[in-house]
């Protein structure tokens, strides 16, 4: 257990990577959005920005980086693959949780200040911010975990089977997607699918993403178990 915590501390040795840079990205994208809003004349409508996504995409890159470089180093420090995996995943869950809560709190501020005084919508986006507090938090959390694990597993596949592995994995995912679309199309099921998607709440989407994240985590671990630095 102690070593799992130490893996978290090792990943945080350079605080910029997990804390500093995300904060800067968040601040920068928010300020940039505010500046852009201030240039556009206010016609009384709602202004929406997708700028809050920026940090989440950074987490995808983090997933890749925390494996490709830190895993070989962790092997040099005689850390088991299991401990490395648990530590890295725990740290990430923690950071995703903090970020999700921060988004929710900033969303409250946003709603309280009439969209930062300019009717803007950056954190408390429609649909996502609806409902009780745990709904947006769960949604943001699940999105970040899924993105991080996609990056992490891809990097693990690359580590273990190099470019060939990644190529095969990519083709498989593409085939599965195309196959699904074909199935839907061939059965004329698009109306049903549309109805299904329309009925989703942020909580059910979070649930689906959580399932995906669990699958990704399992896959990552199994791949990592036989990976060599």
């Amino acid at each position, binding site marked *: 257990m102690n070593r799992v915590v130490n893996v978290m501390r*090792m990943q945080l040795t*350079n605080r910029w990577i997990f804390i500093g840079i995300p904060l800067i990205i968040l601040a920068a994208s928010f300020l940039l959005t505010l500046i852009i809003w201030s240039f556009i004349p206010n016609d009384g409508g709602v202004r929406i920005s997708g700028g809050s996504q920026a940090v989440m995409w950074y987490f995808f890159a983090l997933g890749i980086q925390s494996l490709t470089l830190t895993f070989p180093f962790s092997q040099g420090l005689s850390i*088991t693959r299991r401990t490395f995996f648990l530590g890295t995943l725990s740290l990430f869950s923690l950071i995703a949780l903090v970020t999700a809560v921060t988004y929710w709190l900033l969303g409250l501020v946003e709603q309280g200040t009439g969209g930062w005084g300019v009717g803007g919508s950056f954190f408390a986006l429609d649909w996502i911010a609806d409902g009780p507090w745990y709904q947006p938090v769960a949604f943001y959390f699940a999105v970040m975990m899924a993105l991080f694990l996609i990056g992490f597993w891809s990097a693990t596949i690359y580590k273990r089977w190099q470019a060939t592995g990644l190529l095969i994995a990519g083709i498989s995912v593409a085939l599965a997607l195309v196959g699904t679309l074909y199935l839907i199309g061939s059965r004329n099921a698009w109306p049903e699918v549309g109805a299904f998607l329309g009925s989703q709440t942020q909580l059910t989407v979070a649930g689906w993403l959580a399932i995906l994240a669990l699958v990704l985590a399992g896959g990552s671990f199994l791949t990592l178990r036989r990976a060599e630095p």
Partner: protein
Amino acid sequence: MKTIIEVTDLTKKYRKSEALRGINLALEPGRIYGLLGRNGAGKTTLMSILTAQGFASSGEVRVFGEHPYENERVLNRICFIRESQKYPDSFTAEHAFKSASLFFANWSQELADRLVTDFQLPLRRNIKKLSRGQLSAVGVIIGLASRAELTFFDEPYLGLDAVARQLFYDRLVEDYSRHPRTVVLSSHLIDEVANLLEHVIVIDQGRIIMDDDAETIRGSAFTVVGSAEKVRTFLGSREVVHTDNFASLASVTALGTLNESETREAAELGLELAPVSLQQLIVRKTMSGSPATPEAADRTLSEAAR
């Protein structure tokens, strides 16, 4: 005597090549072992498997009596920084040491600090920007300061200048004397490390070709130079590892020791005797072992003896 590492019939196959071909070893605690051999002989592969960083194709490995794979009881007591060790891009040497201090129970920050001064290592510079020698120094410092019960050094001197290499050898002897542990030092610069070793393991093309106490090996061969005919008479049926011919002269390296009367006999025959260094002996042995199969190697050896 109890062993710290036990290896039985270990093999490692890559798609097109065999890196290890049936390794059997037993290492005892509290010694400095030399794992010697040419580049590509299988040294790093062997150490990777012993530390569960790599995987064997077949065979058994026991470290501290247990299998090392995913085994914290074993891995907690080991340090193996590979020659091509990777560090996170964003790290400085200071970050690397701070991380190492979290995981090695016997970590000595005092020793690490002293070595940083010795090697004049820039602590705050990004690791990506360090020279090859400075990168080696980072590995050497982690290896020494970890004071792990079982420490592997993988060609630790790459890019280090003569002064820095000497520093490493000095600090190793010094710290080892005060804090005895088991050290496996992999190297192809045999002359430089020979005197530090208590036991020598030579690996060549994935096979162990020598596994003996350094002191036993040191006295185990001699070279005799003189007229080819007299050399042949003098050596009789001794096992020959290497022969050089030059005009009517021969320089032959043979196994065994000479007693006083044999030394006198050589002098009377006008033959010159020379001791054989560890490096010379290993070079001769790995050269005679260059055919791919052991049978072929035996043949060259017996042909040379004839």
